[in-house]
């Protein structure tokens, strides 16, 4: 046990990351002054394989935050709860561990880049390891201070008078990869509602929507099953939720067409996966692009997302034409027409005309 504690100290000593700079600017523009009540979710899958033993862990978590912005400077607090399950497989040993973790922290940074700065965390871990037939259960608790924990910037994907959303936990992935662990996925989404001059509770419906969306994405990464029907349900619920809150009177500067979807951050992550997966199909591309347009993530400005999707569409079109089928070509043409990718649409039209 002492050795374990020492190893933990060593691990944590190199895991100390200072509070992040407040200069980072989100792609969605800064949040306006006032109170924002938000929710955040996270999903992760990481693996360690040294050749003789492999550890696979999957985790998820969610939490809420209250952010006050005054003169562009952020203050507030947040809570985050999570759980994970890890399994060990080797030639002479098997094992499993389940962790339940609670984190509390402060909101810092600016309206352009709010920062989740953890102040303390507690983890309860239990499980067992079987080595050569001998079973060794364990049940331990750990406490962490601010110097042990990573801060994370709330990167803004989209923001408006009433809603904002984006991604977070990018720093976690970098830190874990730097320690030699393979990270299959490690990123989170967040969404927030403007509450005005006085703080308000995070909407339970918003938390539910984000959690369900995160579950769709996590399932895709973990099992390869993409539940488009459930994602469509989440999109519908997000639209109904967004329709319930009138625009604050103090936000008269917004143009009539300005709006933001609470699911923009999550959809951005899904679209990045669609654009960069070697297994994306023409149907997945079509569905993803439609969902991206539906949530305002597309057309994208000031980030590489749209270009990456267009490259993927071209790649899929070339493949579909080479295979000689029309279904893939038609689906890519729908995607191209939807996005206004004229050259790609014309290529698809030519292929369809030539194939008749």
């Amino acid at each position, binding site marked *: 046990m002492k050795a374990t504690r020492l190893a933990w100290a060593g691990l944590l000593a190199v*895991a100390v990351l*200072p509070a*992040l700079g407040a200069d980072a*600017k989100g792609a969605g523009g800064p949040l306006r002054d006032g109170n924002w009540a938000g929710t955040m979710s996270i999903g992760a899958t990481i693996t360690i394989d040294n050749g003789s033993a492999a550890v696979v862990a999957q985790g998820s*978590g969610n939490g809420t935050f209250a952010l006050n912005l005054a003169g562009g400077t952020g203050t507030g607090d947040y809570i985050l709860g999570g759980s994970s399950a*890890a399994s*060990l497989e080797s030639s002479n040993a098997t094992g499993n*561990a389940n*962790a339940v973790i609670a984190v509390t922290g402060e909101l810092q940074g600016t309206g352009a880049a709010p920062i989740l700065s953890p102040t303390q965390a507690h*983890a309860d871990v239990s499980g067992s*390891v079987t*080595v050569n037939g001998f079973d060794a259960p*364990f049940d331990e608790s750990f406490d962490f201070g601010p110097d042990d*924990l*990573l801060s*994370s*910037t709330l*990167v803004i994907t989209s923001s408006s008078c009433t809603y904002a959303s*984006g991604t977070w936990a*990018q*720093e976690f992935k*970098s*830190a*874990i990869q730097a320690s030699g*662990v393979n990270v299959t996925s490690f990123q989170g989404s967040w969404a927030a509602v403007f509450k005005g001059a006085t703080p308000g509770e995070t909407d339970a419906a918003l938390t539910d929507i984000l959690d369900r969306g995160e579950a769709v994405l996590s399932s*895709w*990464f973990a*099992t*390869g*099953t993409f539940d*488009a029907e459930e994602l*469509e349900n989440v*999109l519908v619920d997000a*639209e*109904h939720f967004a*329709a319930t809150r009138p*625009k604050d009177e103090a936000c008269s500067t917004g143009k009539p*067409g300005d709006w*933001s979807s609470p699911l923009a951050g999550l959809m951005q992550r*899904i679209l*990045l*996966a669609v654009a960069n997966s*070697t297994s994306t199909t023409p*149907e*997945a591309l079509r*569905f993803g692009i*439609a969902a991206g347009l*539906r949530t305002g993530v597309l057309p*994208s*400005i000031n*980030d590489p997302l*749209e*270009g990456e999707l267009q490259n993927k569409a071209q790649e899929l079109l070339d493949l579909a034409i080479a295979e000689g089928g029309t279904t893939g070509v*038609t689906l890519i043409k*729908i995607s191209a027409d939807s*996005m*206004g990718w*004229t050259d790609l*649409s*014309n290529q698809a039209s030519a292929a369809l005309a030539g194939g008749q």
Partner: protein
Amino acid sequence: MSPRSSRPFVLTAVAIATVLGLGACGSDSDKASSTTGATAATSAPTTVATPTTVAATAVVETTEPESTEPATSEPTTASTDGGAATTVAPTTEQPTTTTAPDALSQLPGVSAVDVAVGGTDVTRPTFTWAPAANAASYQLVVQTADGVPLWAWTGAQTSVVLGGTERAADVEGPTLVGASRVRVYALDAAFTVVAVSGWVALPGS
């Protein structure tokens, strides 16, 4: 540390790290602290699987995008097969579709869809169309008159309001602010196109 004690340690560490993100390399914080929206957006999962709508498929390794080069969004030119559109009075529900054929509408087995535009708010119209034979789902796309994408929708219903749900005037959401157009595609259960409309012009506000 003995092997028996190291294995619980590894499991414990990984289990906690999976949620807390505990890792190594303090210098990484500098990299992370300068993350912009654009670079953060490239932090896509490195391994994803086929996003099909039907069944599970094998997980396939992908390459994590490294490029931070901003993409150019140039969806300003309409497709050459879009054809001319007819302006529609938004408070009526008369089918008003374009007649110009395109590559999709000329495919064997693809029929025409007539889209009606209604509703009392011209900036947030309701689109309605008749069910197409063998259609399992539809995709609706709204663009500006010159082809900049504004909004899209997928679903099994044959009517949808811009933005997906009715909203009061003081609630933000997709809103037409100028001349726009809409088009509907119908797909069967195997995602084969079975019907398509032309672009229908929307007057906007």
